[in-house]
């Protein structure tokens, strides 16, 4: 893992992408790119190196579950930590995310402290 990990923020709402990006910057991770859905994210993941994915679930074109499955089945991408940040609060969705290989799950609305805690925990486990 790089000392300055490169994040990919995937969310169809630009407001939420900005919020997550600013929060990551505040907690010390200023290297981040944005994608508006899973399909765009996948193209970006294959084009450049990313160290961490923060993704919504409910998105057009390709949702977060499908993106997670593709990432986990791709040898070049499967080791990238994948944190779900979503409004989906159904227990079935949380279980499904864990079974598909999500590294963490945050339910919206969330706080800066929650994001920081989950990101740090995942990074610590990764290193």
């Amino acid at each position, binding site marked *: 893992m790089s000392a300055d990990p490169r994040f990919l923020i995937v*969310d169809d*709402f*630009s*407001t*939420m992408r*900005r*919020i997550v990006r*600013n*929060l990551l910057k*505040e907690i010390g991770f200023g290297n981040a790119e944005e994608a508006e859905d899973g399909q765009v994210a996948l193209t970006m993941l294959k084009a450049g190196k990313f160290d961490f994915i923060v993704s919504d*679930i*409910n998105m057009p074109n390709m*949702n977060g*579950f499908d993106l997670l499955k593709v990432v986990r089945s791709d040898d070049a991408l499967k080791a990238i930590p994948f944190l779900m940040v979503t*409004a*989906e*609060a*159904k*227990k*079935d*969705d*949380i*279980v499904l995310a*864990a079974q598909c290989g999500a590294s963490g*799950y*945050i*339910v*919206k*609305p*969330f*706080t*800066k402290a*929650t994001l920081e805690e989950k990101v740090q925990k995942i990074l610590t486990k990764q290193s």
Partner: protein
Amino acid sequence: MGHIDAALLASQDRHNDVGAAEEAAGASAAPDSEENIHYRIGQLTRTLHNALRELGYERDLADARDNLPDARDRLAYIARMTGEAAEKVLNAVDRARTVQQELTEQAGSLRNRWRAVATYSAGGRACTPTGKQLIDETCEFFADVGGQADRTNTILTDIMMAQDFHDLTGQVIRRVVTLAQSLEEQLVKVLIETSPVGQRLRPDQYKLEGPVVAPQERDDVVSDQKGVDDLLASMGF
């Protein structure tokens, strides 16, 4: 008997002859077969359609159908305006942060210069007691600016986080718009079709439903992050 019940029965009577023939055809299928169920749904639809027409509700349905696109447009307008408002707030927060940063840097620079003056005056050269007090208070003020900027930044973060309402309400609005669209399509079908189309619904791969608006009324959802963490912990994650 109510007005609607009477009309429904009258409509049913008028179509009994046709219905009897259709029933005979329908009865040839197994009682619970898919064809039989479709046939019965079709019959109910035709009965309802005729009853609505005779009651004059067809016009009301048409009006409702005509009004749905307007309702969708209004919801889309709300989503767009709230989105733009959230973006404006985020832009303002970014600008305020920049101002705070500049203020902190300038205060730090001035504080260092005043400290030099304080050091000079501490040697008893060219400084009255009032002047020395002024220098001390100025240095103290500049030292506080950094802390005040941190507190302002915390408030700005709270303001920024509050803009997540756009994502959450936007998802709910999108679902309502989809629902309105579906309702509109159904109304159009009721209005223009006399026989049902045996079209199978494709099950969604995932049944995502977005933000839960009343979590206290359900036991299949979590209401906060603690619920997520507890659930994952119970699974060993």
